[in-house]
């Protein structure tokens, strides 16, 4: 749709101690589009998301938001820009109940006092839209929720706000059939409303069902970012597992050995598990 | 452990004499639980009055709580060893407002309202320690000796009084350059283990040049002696003490400690108990002595006893007094030393 991406990253590097996890990553998310971020386990998807949302500082690289360079040092900076994230590791406060978690950090107030009835009503409405039928009470601690229920709460929490960019890191991993369908529909709806959406998923059917663009990470490097219509299912899988597919992906001279042991792009001394 | 049998007796409803005693702690000195309690109990039992003796464990909140509880329990006379004058006064005033007679035992509550004051003079104790130390240094013939101070707990007001006492003796000698003042440190909580470390560091700091140790009680003295022993300096450096504990007396017999201060607690307890019994029965006794309370500006009827310095020669006096038994002191290797010192 629009020409300038809402979020653009350039040359992101990120290491944990001696281990380099992201190498010179470029990434863009456009408003009104769903960008699927795919990659093998451990490719660095979640790390990239956490760099975007200010949880991890990056070692190098630029962030452009709406075309302007920005620095994001903490999740608060990201939220101020209008970035909402559903993290893979959910990050809910087990000692708080569903409503409390959903409004954490942005409680509704009337004067000084928390406006519990309003929050409860809003939470109930949002959850109802996500096909949650087994939650007994909105005042239940999230520690007593099932895996899928927790995930739904995390998703509901992220879409409650007026944001510009929503990033969902494997949001449907623990969801049932009906709930997954609802979430995918929601993702599409958000994009149609003009938001930029980034969806991380290992499910190729879901990816092809909702995404407009696909970005593939391979061992910490961004190997392709293309229109979904320009690529096939099989090509994406190849990109994920081998880092290249035909003309796409890593340059051949980096000597990738098929889909078994990919060469380590990072110059570190360590390789895969033997 | 108490002769209190208050049963259903309603607070203040009858005037059966009953005496409450609050001791200050059990750690700054062995005397409170080891001697005072024993002698007071003996006296009260002999007089056939009810009594309740408790210990505040050095905690003044406890101290006040116990006082509240004693008043609730219906004591008619209250005898306190205050932890500090502030709480002491609060307790005395409260007791007075409830019609309970009061005695300051061993420590005078400044600005307080107690009817009597029974005590050893704590500054006098310190004085004896100072004099004892200079006597021992003279005996050893040390020229311009370096004297180290191992004071009592910095939060204990008595430690301050003891220090005032020995300072009054030693400070002139420091000023006249007859003695040299060495390190001067207080031992938190009268903790013997910390005392050992502190003294060891004094020794390190001065390069071993300490010729006399003014230790505020026998426990601290023993800590210093343990370090001196390690450096094989025991017996060469005189150490003072207080309380005439069996350990202190043994150290004196062995020649490691120069002196201790013996307070005839039995007499003190007896005097106080007599006054308390009289008060509890609603009688008034004459003591013949008074002490001026500098803060409250009143003269308090007082019984003042004098502490006694104990050297090797008169260790036997303490035993003869029944304060400690021969069995406690003359164990093992000390049997011979006892005999030498004329203890039978």
């Amino acid at each position, binding site marked *: 749709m629009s020409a300038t991406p809402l979020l653009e990253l350039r040359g992101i590097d990120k290491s944990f101690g001696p281990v380099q996890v992201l190498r010179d990553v470029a990434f863009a998310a456009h408003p009104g589009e769903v960008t699927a971020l795919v990659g093998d386990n451990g490719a660095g998807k979640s790390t990239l998301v956490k760099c975007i949302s200010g949880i991890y500082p990056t070692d190098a690289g630029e962030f452009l938001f709406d075309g302007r360079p920005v620095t994001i040092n903490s999740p608060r900076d990201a939220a101020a820009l209008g970035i909402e994230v559903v993290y893979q590791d959910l990050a809910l*406060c087990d000692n*708080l109940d569903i409503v409390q978690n959903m409004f954490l950090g942005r409680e509704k107030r009337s004067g000084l006092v928390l406006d519990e009835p309003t929050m*409860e009503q809003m939470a109930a409405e949002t959850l109802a839209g996500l096909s949650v039928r087994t939650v007994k009470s909105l005042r239940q601690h999230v520690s007593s929720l099932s895996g899928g229920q927790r995930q739904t709460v995390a998703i509901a929490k992220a879409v409650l706000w007026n944001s510009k960019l929503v990033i969902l890191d494997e949001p449907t991993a623990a969801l049932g059939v009906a709930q997954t369908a609802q979430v995918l529909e929601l993702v599409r709806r958000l994009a149609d409303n003009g938001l930029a959406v980034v969806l991380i998923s290992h499910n190729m059917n879901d990816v092809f069902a909702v995404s407009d663009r696909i970005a593939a990470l391979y061992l910490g490097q961004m190997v392709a970012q293309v229109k979904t219509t320009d690529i096939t299912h099989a090509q994406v899988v190849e990109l994920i597992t081998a880092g290249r597919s035909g003309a796409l992906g890593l340059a051949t001279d980096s000597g990738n050995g098929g889909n078994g042991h990919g060469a380590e792009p990072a110059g570190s001394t360590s390789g895969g598990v033997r | 452990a108490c002769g209190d049998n208050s049963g259903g007796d309603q607070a203040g409803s009858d005037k059966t004499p009953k005496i409450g005693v609050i001791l200050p702690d059990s750690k700054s000195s062995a005397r409170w639980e080891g001697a005072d309690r024993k002698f007071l109990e003996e006296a009260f039992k002999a007089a056939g009055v009810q009594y309740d003796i408790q210990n505040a464990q050095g905690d003044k909140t406890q101290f006040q709580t116990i006082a509240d*509880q004693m008043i609730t329990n219906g004591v008619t006379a209250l005898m306190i060893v205050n932890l500090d004058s502030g709480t002491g006064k609060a307790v005395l005033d409260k007791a007075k407002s409830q019609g309970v007679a009061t005695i300051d035992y061993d420590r005078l509550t400044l600005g307080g309202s107690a009817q009597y004051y029974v005590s050893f003079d704590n500054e006098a104790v310190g004085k004896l320690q100072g004099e004892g130390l200079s006597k021992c240094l003279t005996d050893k013939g040390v020229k311009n000796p370096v004297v180290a101070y191992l004071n009592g707990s910095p939060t204990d007001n008595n430690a301050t009084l003891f220090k005032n006492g020995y300072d009054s003796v030693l400070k002139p000698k420091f000023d006249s350059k007859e003695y040299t003042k060495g390190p001067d440190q207080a031992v938190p909580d009268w903790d013997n283990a910390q005392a050992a470390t502190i003294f060891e560091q004094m020794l390190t700091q001065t390069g071993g040049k300490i010729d006399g140790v003014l230790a505020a009680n026998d426990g601290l003295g023993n800590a210093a002696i343990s370090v001196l022993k390690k450096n094989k300096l025991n017996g060469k450096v005189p150490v003072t003490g207080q309380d005439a504990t069996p350990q202190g007396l043994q150290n004196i017999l062995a020649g490691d400690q120069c002196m201790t201060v013996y307070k005839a607690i039995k007499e003190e307890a007896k005097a106080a108990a007599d006054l308390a019994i009289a008060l509890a029965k609603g009688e008034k006794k004459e003591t013949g002595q008074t002490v001026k309370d500098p803060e409250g500006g009143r003269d308090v009827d007082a019984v003042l006893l004098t502490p006694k310095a104990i050297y090797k020669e008169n260790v036997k006096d303490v035993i003869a007094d029944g304060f400690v038994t021969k069995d406690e002191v003359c164990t093992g290797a000390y049997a011979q030393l006892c005999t030498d010192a004329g203890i039978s």
Partner: protein
Amino acid sequence: MTTTVVQKEGPAAVTARPTLGSHVRNYVGRVRGGDIGALPAVLGLVVLCTVFSIMRPSFLTAGNFANLFTQGAAVTLIAMGLVFVLLLGEIDLSAGFASGVCAAVLANVVTVLGYPWYVAVLAAVATGVVIGTALGFLVAKIGIPSFVVTLAGFLAFQGIVLMLMKEGTNISVRDDVLVAIANRNLAPTLGWLLATVAVAGYAAVQLLRHRNRSARGLVTDPVTVVFARIAGLALILGVAVFILNLERSRNVLVVSLKGVPIVVPIIAALLVLWTFVLQRTSYGRHIYAVGGNKEAARRAGINVDRIRISVFMICSSMAAVGGIVAASRANSVDPNTGGSNVLLYAVGAAVIGGTSLFGGKGRVLDAVLGGAVVAVIDNGMGLMGYSSGVKYVVTGVVLLLAASVDAFSRRRSTATGSR
């Protein structure tokens, strides 16, 4: 008893409108399921009081009841502040001596410098705020574990008290207002008035809340339950005020002693204030969030460092209030004020009440209930007259007894796997 409990008790947003019967069934189910709120601490208290009453009938007199409050006040106040720090999973070992420092400042300002009492109180509380800010800064910004920071504080403040006390003497506090705090009582009518205001306020809050929720179609507790709660509070306060208004002087001719001790409304007001902050403001919500999952809180955009610093400030300020009460009770300040067992008792009070040392779980009411347990033990032991060795042992055993009543009544909670 307070709004805290109430909120816990209200399972909301269930479709069927609950009746009184279902409410009781639900409560029984929750208790059996382990979600028991204040019950264990209350049970422990009841057991303790029964034992002491049997062993020493004088335990059960009006005078002793009144004593309990003033005896436990300082520790309870410090424990209330500690709850905030514990809620984050931090610890403040220096709270005891911080209260000592603040008390020393109070005494110096009012007695040595001769300023009026309110200046002294302000100075003491300000000292608390400064101390808390410093501790919080070291923990949150420099990143030293709170145990180490506050251990350093424990040592340093001990020294500061000594220095303020000129190495070991004590300073009297003779100001009438200050002395009154822990030693005087409210006029009986004033006691009744305050109790009435409290009940009325509670009723208003409850009923408004009920109306508000039902107006929006949210599930509410049945009106009968709401009224039962209000009646319960009225009963408790009524009985307490009645007993405290009995004459308890041993010698009425000399002095008349009756009325609610002044510390009681002070503690009650602070309890309401802090409970309100924790339960009804977003700041309080954020404290729980940071304590439950620091990382989740950070991701939700909460300024974690600010929360961490602020709880230390609250803790030290409450320590200052505790120190003021202690100074008032003792009519003086000495170098041991806030020392000795004060800190361990205060942390113990919070923990006995049900606050977790790992953060995220606890209420200010816990500190008050736990403080009551500690005060009852101290009070009861004071009536027994054991020699000091025996007394220590018995105190330890009694504490264990109270805690195991608590543990047994919490038992089911772990058995069912819920927390």
